């Protein structure tokens, strides 16, 4: 997981698998960022190969916290088969999904 800052947006690049272990690491990171007062979060999933409902739950948690703080959360770079998970769960209507990180940073 690589964290960076672009245009005031905190970008979290998550690679590999968001299985139970990966999700737990992401949750710890996201909670720390929210605690530190970050209000714009972009998840760069271009290197992500796997996500399950627990991974989605962490994204929803970030969304709910940031909505209260008038913040934003978006996702970019998801692979086709992962995009399908967002569609089936209905979360494609909640999270702005951008093709590239550049699109997301300028569009958020």
């Amino acid at each position, binding site marked *: 997981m690589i964290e960076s800052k672009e245009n005031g947006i905190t970008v979290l690049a998550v690679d590999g698998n968001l299985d139970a272990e990966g999700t737990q690491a992401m949750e710890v990171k996201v909670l720390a960022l929210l605690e530190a007062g970050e209000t714009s979060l972009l998840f760069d999933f271009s290197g992500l190969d796997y996500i399950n409902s627990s991974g989605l739950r962490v994204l929803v948690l970030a969304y709910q916290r940031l909505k209260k703080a008038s913040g934003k959360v978006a996702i970019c770079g998801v692979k086709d088969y992962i995009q*399908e998970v967002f569609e089936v769960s209905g979360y494609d209507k909640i999270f702005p999904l951008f093709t590239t990180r550049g699109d997301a940073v300028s569009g958020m």
Partner: protein
Amino acid sequence: MPEDSISFRMTNKQNCFMCFQPKVEEFGAAHGLPMKVIFHLTLCLDELVTNIISYGYADFDEHPIDVTINYVDEVISIRIEDDSEPFNIFEAPEPELDVPLEERKRPIGGMGIHLVKNMVDEIDYKREDGKNILLLKKNICEKCCSTDG
């Protein structure tokens, strides 16, 4: 010819994802299944086994979870057998997809099962000899295989 069937036993005390993920991937690769199908199979096993381990046992003992994956006539079957509390997948509550996220009583409740139901074509459940036996079937159609996902 690659084996058309694999079986393995895990237990509720193991990191099951690390057990089955390489097996599903190897099985999928041996049969030339698209990434998307391998992902669907992995996700189904993950959600169901996580469910069993998280909610299925009233004691703290070690319990076996047996999995068989078959590939015959363009249909993949996954059979999961466990001795956890009865869990009928058809009685699991659906997530409140039509309710805005903020108003849902259960923000993520039932999502794992909802994903499973959408990733396979057929589901059968029975309770037999104190065991849950779940059978999932997925058709590997031309359409799925022509995508690169």
